[in-house]
């Protein structure tokens, strides 16, 4: 028996992809548990002040110590996950819906509608994402709803382009003509045939994007444009604690940073895994 060599075995890619997906999903599952059971996992409320302990080191009643205001870091880190993950997921969902809709219409209609929509997107994409987010956030002011809108706005153009490119190739495929000859209306074809088939790349990008969205959110909060204190939020916590690090009080800013890192890692691994899997089935 001779084994053909030289070509990488097709199964290896898929196995690699599934291990990425598994690790990413496990991380996100743990985060989800933290988000759901945050009040049960901590004995202090996120905004509850312990008047006897300010900047207390980890141990005793406060497993991760307390911050400048005497709030429990462990409790705040857990509760912040609710807000950070919630805003990121909501913003990406909004970006996917809005971006896909624009891309769908632009790609399928073509002509002037396409030109106008794409030039508008060009304007948004001409600025670096974070600068744009900063500008809009400064304009709208802080608050959860505004943050969702800002992060959705800066991410939507990418989805619009992605979907538009897919739609432009899909609309030339025979099944679209088949549907037209069946008497389907414009929106019927778009909704039943073009849309479901054009979302494949979106499914891959969206989890990755959730990770980036969390970083944008934390960045905005770090700069003071995010959620107002005393609401627990990782970026704001890092910002508040950043001065303590030089004084050797690492516990106020390192734990939120680590949690942020773990969450982003979870989303990235899941996204990478989905990408690998999509590539290996295409081959």
């Amino acid at each position, binding site marked *: *028996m*001779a*084994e*053909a060599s*030289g*070509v*990488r*075995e*097709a*199964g290896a890619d*898929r*196995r690699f992809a599934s291990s990425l997906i598994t690790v990413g999903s496990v991380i996100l599952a743990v985060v989800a548990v933290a988000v759901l059971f945050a009040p049960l996992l901590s004995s202090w409320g996120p905004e509850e002040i312990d008047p006897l302990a300010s900047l207390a080191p980890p141990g005793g009643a406060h497993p991760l110590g307390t911050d400048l205001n005497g709030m429990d870091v462990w409790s705040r880190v857990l509760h912040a996950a609710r807000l950070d993950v919630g805003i990121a997921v909501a913003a990406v969902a909004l970006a996917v819906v809005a971006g896909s809709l624009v891309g769908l219409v632009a790609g399928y209609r073509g002509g002037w509608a396409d030109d106008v929509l794409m030039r508008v997107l060009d304007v948004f994409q001409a600025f670096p994402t974070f600068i744009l987010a900063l500008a809009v956030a400064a304009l709208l002011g802080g608050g959860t709803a505004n943050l969702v809108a800002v992060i959705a706005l800066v991410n939507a153009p990418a989805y619009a382009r992605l979907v538009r490119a897919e739609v432009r190739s899909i609309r030339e*495929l*025979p*099944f679209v*003509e*088949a*549907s*037209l*000859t*069946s*008497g*389907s*209306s414009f929106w*019927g074809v778009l909704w*039943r*045939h073009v849309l*479901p*088939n054009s979302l494949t790349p979106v499914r891959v990008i969206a989890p990755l994007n959730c990770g980036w969205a969390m970083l944008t959110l934390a960045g905005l909060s770090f700069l003071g444009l995010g959620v107002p204190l005393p609401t627990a939020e990782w970026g704001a916590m890092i910002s508040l604690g950043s001065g303590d690090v030089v004084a050797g009080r690492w516990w106020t800013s390192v734990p939120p940073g680590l949690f942020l890192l773990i969450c982003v890692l979870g989303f990235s691994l899941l996204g990478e895994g989905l990408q690998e899997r999509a590539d290996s089935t295409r081959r």
Partner: protein
Amino acid sequence: MTLLSIEDLSVVIRRPGRRVAALSGVNLSVEPGEVVGLVGESGGGKSMVARSIVGLLPGGSRTSGRVMFDGADVLTMDAAELEAFRGHGAAICFQNPRGALSPTRTVGRQLVDRLVTHRSLAPAPAREVAAELFESVGIRSPRRRLDAYPHELSGGMAQRVMISLATGCAPGLLIADEPTTGLDVTLTREILNRFRLAANAERRGVLLISHDLASIAEVCDRVVVLYAGTVVESGPGPQVLHEPAHPYTRALLRSVPDIDGRPVTATPGAMPLLTEAPSSCPFAPRCAHATQLCTADLPVAGPLAMDWSAACFHPRSGPLDDSAEPPVPAEIPPAGTVPSAGTATSPGVKESVLRIEDAHVVYRSRFGGGGHHALRGVSLSVAAGERLGVVGESGCGKSTLARVMLGLVQPSRGRVEVAGQALAELRGARLRRLRTRAQLVFQDPIGSLSPRRTVQDAIGEPLRAAGVPAAERASRVARALERMELDPSILGRRPHELSGGQAQRVGIARALVGEPDLIVFDEPTSALDVTVQAQILKVIAEVSGDSSRGSVFISHDLATVRGFCDRVVVLYLGRIVEEGPVEEVFGNPGHPYTRALLSSAPSLGAGYGGPQVELTKDLEEADAAGGCALAPRCPFATDECGEQEQELRPYGASLVACRRAAEIPALIER
């Protein structure tokens, strides 16, 4: 001495969750100067044989047996030996020549590079050799073509470049994997003759792989038939093709429509995908002659005569057309005699379901200037119950015509009426309703179904668009499914879970379910395997027999059209050059182009009985300045032909757009 000898070759491909026995105990040999045809349907293992020979098996393959080439076993070669062997020993011509040529380098450069690497020539003399090679494969003005990029070449030209690339380094063995798939009939013959020449001139061995028996029949010395990874029959070309012994070979040959108009016989079922080497005859479940022995034991290749063997317990004998054969599956009913010549000019009393008047279609190029004139004044009509065939080579406007019939393309001039109403005059919902009166069956059966929709959704779509309530929709879908002889269990499946034949039946069911007045079949069988093709042709013949409905059957293949059309239209460069009753057009063609098409059509039977006519140039070389579009390629053209536009005028029972149609029989005599 034998050039290539494959002994007991087995290939098993293992993928996670999947295992395929691609080849099982294949024996095959090629002598120098011999052309061996390797035929069978997809999944039979043809390409796997080619890949084994050049050591290009896919990942996860396990092989056993031997592939002896010039005394060395290819399967045990290391990387360096394989590299040397691939250039000099064996070379492959691929199915898709334009895909196999690198798009960013000129074809001359690609050929010169090969000559420099494998024959150690200096670049300047290599260019000379390259020009000679181009000339030898029939490329006119070779020096100019050396500087062309692959996208500038037509499919036929690109395949010739591939042949020159493959023969350039003088390999002992030339492997051609479906070299003519996608090429027009006139080119197919020319390209296949190149392979015959390659074998004759330098005593090279040629292994010609094809699913199309009829076309390779003429150039092969020996034919090897594969089924489910096993060799079922091998022997001299004439015997295997005209009096095959194995029931599968016979089924295969009977499935092919022929221009002599003999009936096509469909064999039910499809080729199995084996996971283990077979322990019984793999064809037994589809075979009319199968006995208990066949399902219990594996037949080994037994010699029938010199060089002729078949792996069958009950080999057949006698010519294929022997009507004494048990009439297992149903035959496709021959074309009815509904309308006749009169309808060519006036649609008679029958209500016409489609009428096209002087349709022109120009595809404008995106950046202004020029454009492609796809249809140049086509007029035709189809009556209820009539079956119209439209034939022509690629680029003649067939598909555009289909799109015009369905209102998918608006003619830039002219008028299209479906069911008595003009498409151009309607908008919105009324246009959509009219569109449902005409339905299209697509060439690509799986691609014409939305990947994320189930079969149920796909078939029911015309009804949903028409606002039919869900309960009635389900019952009508079920009825359409039954008519297509499909099992209701496939309703929940998605397109990628269907075979090509099933998908095409679903496509026909979708076209049929709304009871349209007109069904247009756009090359409905060209993407299917031969035996499946016959099954689908049978279904189409049955469906198009409905007297309330008109059918248009578009094909590049004259033989399929002959099978069941009443009237035929021949298109050339966007114009109708000949139109008439099917028997007239095939039996007594008037236009030189029709004559040339018929002359070059491959046939296993009697073929085209009339005198042979060959066009003098390839399509891409002929620039029509004005007048008759065929004039630059026509062997009978005079100066006047290049000046006058030709109009359809009566010739026998047909209409022919050639001023010399009446003189041509006499001209051929001379």
